[in-house]
């Protein structure tokens, strides 16, 4: 068991709007951390700060033992090169709400693109591993389709396979089922459950309370840019301590 992610005193502002206020967080290897909360509470922003899609305003973010960002009032405390940042971020896979598959590439090309161009994996090897991943998500027969010809659920499963192709140590999910038709949500959650069972460290921003309850090893409730409650799923869902958590859960459950 090792510490995979450390977030210390992180603040993030967009202009004058403060979206993250003093966030402290640790994620251990193999944990499935679910982040819930109303929209606009900063859940997605927190996730995006972990792989440098957003840059924190102040505080410190570490991935394993590598420093990704350390800032005080927007100023870097250390010079971290773009190359180093890319290397660290390659350890984290990310799945987006709107899939963001590359529309000009077929399914298998989507999957092998980063391994081949970033990690310099030989093409044949990347294809072989890509096919394995496609089998895992149940889409090996779609390898030569373009994303536009797949359903939302299928696209999201390809997106998961694409992220896994980089052999990440941590997977970030940013509301992975929010853009899906209700009947397609299950197939994506199934794949995520399989990953969790295999011991993948996961951080999942989600509105799927059933998933958080069943699969999450820890749940964080965020509100107005702060972590207002944190605990085991059963604690949070059956006996929330915080008033705001209670109000939120009453609305969504």
């Amino acid at each position, binding site marked *: 068991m090792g510490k995979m992610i450390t977030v210390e005193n992180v603040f993030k502002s967009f202009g004058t709007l403060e979206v993250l206020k003093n966030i402290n967080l640790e994620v251990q290897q193999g944990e499935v951390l679910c982040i819930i909360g109303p929209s606009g509470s900063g859940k997605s922003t927190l996730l995006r700060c972990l792989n440098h899609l957003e840059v924190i305003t102040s505080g410190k973010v570490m991935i394993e033992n590598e420093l990704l960002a350390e800032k005080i009032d927007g100023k870097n405390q250390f010079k971290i090169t773009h190359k180093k940042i890319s290397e660290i971020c390659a350890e*984290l896979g990310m799945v987006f709400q*709107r899939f963001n*598959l590359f529309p000009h590439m077929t399914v298998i090309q989507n999957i092998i693109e980063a391994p081949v161009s970033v990690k310099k994996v030989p093409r044949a090897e990347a294809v072989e591993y890509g096919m394995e991943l496609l089998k895992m998500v149940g889409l090996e027969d779609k390898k030569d389709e373009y994303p536009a010809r797949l359903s939302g659920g299928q696209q999201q499963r390809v997106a998961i396979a694409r992220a896994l192709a980089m052999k990440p140590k941590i997977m970030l999910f940013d509301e992975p089922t929010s853009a899906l038709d209700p009947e397609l949500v299950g197939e994506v959650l199934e794949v995520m459950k399989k990953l969790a069972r295999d011991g993948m460290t996961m951080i999942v921003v989600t509105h799927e309370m059933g998933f958080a309850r069943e699969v999450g090893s820890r749940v964080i409730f965020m509100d107005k840019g702060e972590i207002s409650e944190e605990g085991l799923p059963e604690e949070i869902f059956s006996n929330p301590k915080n008033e705001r958590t209670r109000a939120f859960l009453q609305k969504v459950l």
Partner: protein
Amino acid sequence: MLEAFHFFPRLLHGTWVTIQLTIVAIIFGVIFGLVLALGRLSKNQILNKISWLYIWFFRGTPLLMQLFFIYYAFPLFFNPPLKYSAWVACYIAFSLNSAAYLAEIIRAAIQSIDKGQMEAAKALGMSYGQAMRRIIVPQSYRRLIPPVGNEFIMLIKDTSLVSIVAMPDLMRVTHEIESTNANAAIYLPSAIIYLAITTICTIVFEKLEKKYSVYE
């Protein structure tokens, strides 16, 4: 009208000059235009300003004036004065000018690509350059085709300006035939040739657009 056939070889020769000039200008324009577009999209303020200034100048002054400047004025900045032919001056002027227009076309096409594409590429560990080369720019091709087709057609017609610096293009040849033979009817077949080239272009660009639409 029959006489037009007699002049046909000369007209064809002029047509070839027109086509050559257009193709050189569009090829160079696309390459240099892409560099300028990336400059305009760059966070580097110096690159950004240089690209902006370039585009500002070449879109803001008449093409004919740019051509005159490059042909007549620019060589005089050197001692002894530079010597190059009207051909070279025309190639340079049209390439530099079309680059400015194409830069803005390319910039708009790149900016129209969904932001999520760059984010996905970065999340996979790609550098900005890799993401541009492999993900963003290839997706902009299809969106580039209609405006580039338009630019191509404008360019074909604009090349007639080179007749003023004695380049034997289709326009110049037609004008020479007209003045030496006192036969103004020669403008008609010449216009038909221009129309034929632009029509072929339209068809080719429509085909290209279809070809690149497979994945949408």
